[in-house]
């Protein structure tokens, strides 16, 4: 790929990116969220056309720029979110698009299954060809995805964040599979933002930062620290200056909390912790280990199956009306003071087509101060918006602009400004700086520490260890839906946390 540039509305996703991969190597493409890795891969795979630059596969330009052409040229992609059809069988999923046929039209299931078995034996990827995909585990689904790619005779496999959803044993299996693929002469392009994996399994690494290539190194000659430096663009994690914590009383007490997640499987298992006033409690963990569900239960967006949550000494989980589940009520949360910066501001945090002013009152829109007897008080809404905009330096400083028109950083500032306007006793901050520019990161971090100084209790959920390490006073690590360890900041380091996050401390 040469000189790839891709522009989206409001963002330049890739700027003049060059990437070359040698046959038979495992090549990592790393970078933080939003660095442009996924866009680059979509362009490579033909899903999106670049605004400038060329893509060459084994010397030949990709033409036409479609996935079909990319597949023909020997490219295969295992997407981060699996591209599988749950009601169909494994064999049907694998052969889709290049089905073996009888008489040209009839699907030859026997041959499909036979070919699949042959492939799975060769690469030691055991799956049952007749099983329906909806009955498989995540690790098995990933194997189906890899088989799909191999079935198409791919010589180059792209794996987009393949470990994000896997358990540690599954990750080990994946490593074995990747090595087997390499031994068979396949090329693997491995996209990740996890340095440990990159160091463990790859030959060369290309680092992306803010849409550009920040460096290219041999894995053997590099170190985690160097890669981290290249990814972040700063020599070390920037240290946030903060006075020592002065923890106070218990603000939030969670005991024995359990909840179901996606597919009705247990996602939160018997979680207990106390969050104290005047401290930042970090919740670390690989994404998908129950953090999202835990926060959803605490904010009333998900039902709990057991346990209790006390906010300011009052139980907030109440039995549901029809089912034997427990749920927190928005009114209680508002009254007792719970703020929540959601992890996905586009999905949860903002109504993008509402104005900044309207977004700044979401959740508090029923309060007296914003409403007359029948009508909303436009003046009060505007005054509130102006005050928040000035206080958080939201740009452009216009309360009428739809939130959609703002940059990611400014959108996040709206969310933080709104949640702090609740003057919450407890603030749940989930991935508060994801996809946000440096300036906004610093401003949001500073705000969080200020709130801590004012005696608030802050629960910081982040996948970025650096963020947790620089902000948190205590760190709880979640793995497999449980809290597997709680450390004081002084005892914590990346290695120790890393062990806990991968379940290594058991």
């Amino acid at each position, binding site marked *: 790929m040469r000189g790839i540039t891709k522009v989206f509305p409001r963002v330049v996703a890739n700027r003049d990116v060059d990437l070359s991969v040698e046959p038979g190597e495992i090549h990592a493409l790393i970078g933080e969220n939003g660095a442009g890795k996924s866009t680059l891969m979509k362009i490579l795979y033909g899903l999106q056309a670049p605004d400038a630059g060329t893509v060459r596969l084994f010397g030949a330009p990709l033409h036409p720029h479609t996935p079909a052409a990319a597949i023909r040229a020997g490219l295969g992609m295992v997407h981060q979110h699996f591209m599988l059809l749950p009601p169909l069988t494994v064999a049907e999923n694998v052969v889709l698009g*290049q089905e073996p046929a009888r008489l040209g*039209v009839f699907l030859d299931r026997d041959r499909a299954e036979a070919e699949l078995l042959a492939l799975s034996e060769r690469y030691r990827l055991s799956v049952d060809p007749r099983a329906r995909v909806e009955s498989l585990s995540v690790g098995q689904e990933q194997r189906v995805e890899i088989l799909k790619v191999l079935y198409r005779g791919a010589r180059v496999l792209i794996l987009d964040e393949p470990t994000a959803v896997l358990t540690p044993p599954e990750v080990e299996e994946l490593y074995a599979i990747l090595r087997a693929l390499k031994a068979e002469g396949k090329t693997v392009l491995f996209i990740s933002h996890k340095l440990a994996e990159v160091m463990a399994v790859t030959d060369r690494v290309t680092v992306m930062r803010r849409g550009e290539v920040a460096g290219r190194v041999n894995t053997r000659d590099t170190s985690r620290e160097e890669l981290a430096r290249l990814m972040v663009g700063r020599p070390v994690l920037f240290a946030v200056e903060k006075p020592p914590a002065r923890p106070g009383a218990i603000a939030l007490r969670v005991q024995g909390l359990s909840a179901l997640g996606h597919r009705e499987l247990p996602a939160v298992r018997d979680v207990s912790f106390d969050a104290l006033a005047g401290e930042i409690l970090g919740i670390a963990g690989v994404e998908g280990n129950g953090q999202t569900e835990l926060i959803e239960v605490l904010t009333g967006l998900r039902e709990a199956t057991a346990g209790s949550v006390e906010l300011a000494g009052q139980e907030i989980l109440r039995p549901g009306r029809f089912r034997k589940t427990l749920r927190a009520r928005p009114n209680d949360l508002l009254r007792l003071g719970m703020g929540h910066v959601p992890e996905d501001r586009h999905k949860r945090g903002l109504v993008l087509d509402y104005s900044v002013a309207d977004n700044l009152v979401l959740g508090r829109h029923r309060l007296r101060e914003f409403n007359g007897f029948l009508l909303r008080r436009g003046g009060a809404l505007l005054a509130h918006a102006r005050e928040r905009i000035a206080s958080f330096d939201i740009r452009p400083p216009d309360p009428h602009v739809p939130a959609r028109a703002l940059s990611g950083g400014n959108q996040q500032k709206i969310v933080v400004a709104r949640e702090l306007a609740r003057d919450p006793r407890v603030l749940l901050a989930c991935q508060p700086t994801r996809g946000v520019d440096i300036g906004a990161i610093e401003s949001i971090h500073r705000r969080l520490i200020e709130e801590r100084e004012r005696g608030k209790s802050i629960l910081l959920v982040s996948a970025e260890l650096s963020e947790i390490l620089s902000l948190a006073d205590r760190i709880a690590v979640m793995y497999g839906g449980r809290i597997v360890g709680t450390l004081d900041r002084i005892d914590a380091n990346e290695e120790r946390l890393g062990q806990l996050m991968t379940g290594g401390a058991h």
Partner: protein
Amino acid sequence: MNLLADLWHILWSVETLTGTIRLSIPLLLAALGGVFSERSGVVNIALEGIMLNAAFATVLATHALTHPAVGEVPGGPFADPDLLVFGMWSGVAAGMAAGVLTALIHAVVTVTAKADQIVSGVGVNLLAIGSTQFLCFKFFGSTSNSPTIPAIRPWDLGDFGQSFLGQVLFGYSPLVYLAFGVLALAHVVLFRTTFGLRLQAVGEHPRAADTLGVSVGRMRYAGVLLSGALAGLGGAYLTSDVAQFTQNMTAGRGYIALAAMILGKWTPGGALGACLLFAFAQKFQFALRGAPSPLLQSIPSQFTDMIPYLLTILVLAGLVGRARAPAALGKPYEASEA
């Protein structure tokens, strides 16, 4: 006991059995069309309009082609039987073609322009009502009905044709057997061919299909146009049953077909069952009118009319069985979104 005997009698009468089959055929064909469209991810409320346009096209073509044979007297002696048969089957073909053309509008609006599939269906239905009445006036001088056309008749089987078995098994227009052939074919195409697999893939997870090089747009066009051909055949059948075009003659059959498709869980076999059920309910009501028992006679027809709709509501609400729609149904596919 008298009542039960009456019911039994009505149930097993030739009239009820053959009537059920006859009434179910247009529903079945349209429902099969719905299966293909919706399996590819396109909601097809336009079935109603497709059938209506097809019915009109059938009448128009048949009339035009058989008119010289019929002479000036409708229903008069046919000069040339071969020409007559040719004209009638051409009418069926014209109906299917009109169905495909109508479906093409729906496909262009929903697949190419990616507009709302339901509104598009509403628009197509309105267009069909207006255009058929308009054209009916243009060609036949009346907005309400056309002159009668010759209908495709059942085969003549002599005495056997008059027996119970003969009537129940062979007393239908050849179109009925064609419809059952189409049903079997639809099942095979959907579940046994590569085309069917791709069609399902596009309706379940278009992005997955796209990444494997299956063209989402092309498959959806195929699905919608196929539904046009099938519902068009259903419309053609309607006219062969009453031998003329009348204003808004589909009278909601497209919607009942939609209901049958949902009740049949988006499968051809299920659709057949649902269509037979709905047709039976309707036919049974007719039969009750002539029942000897006054109690049976007094059941208001409105209650049996409601059966298909109430059943569909119950099914969709998950109160009776569970229906699982194709996952990407109703969602336009944007190739470039992340």
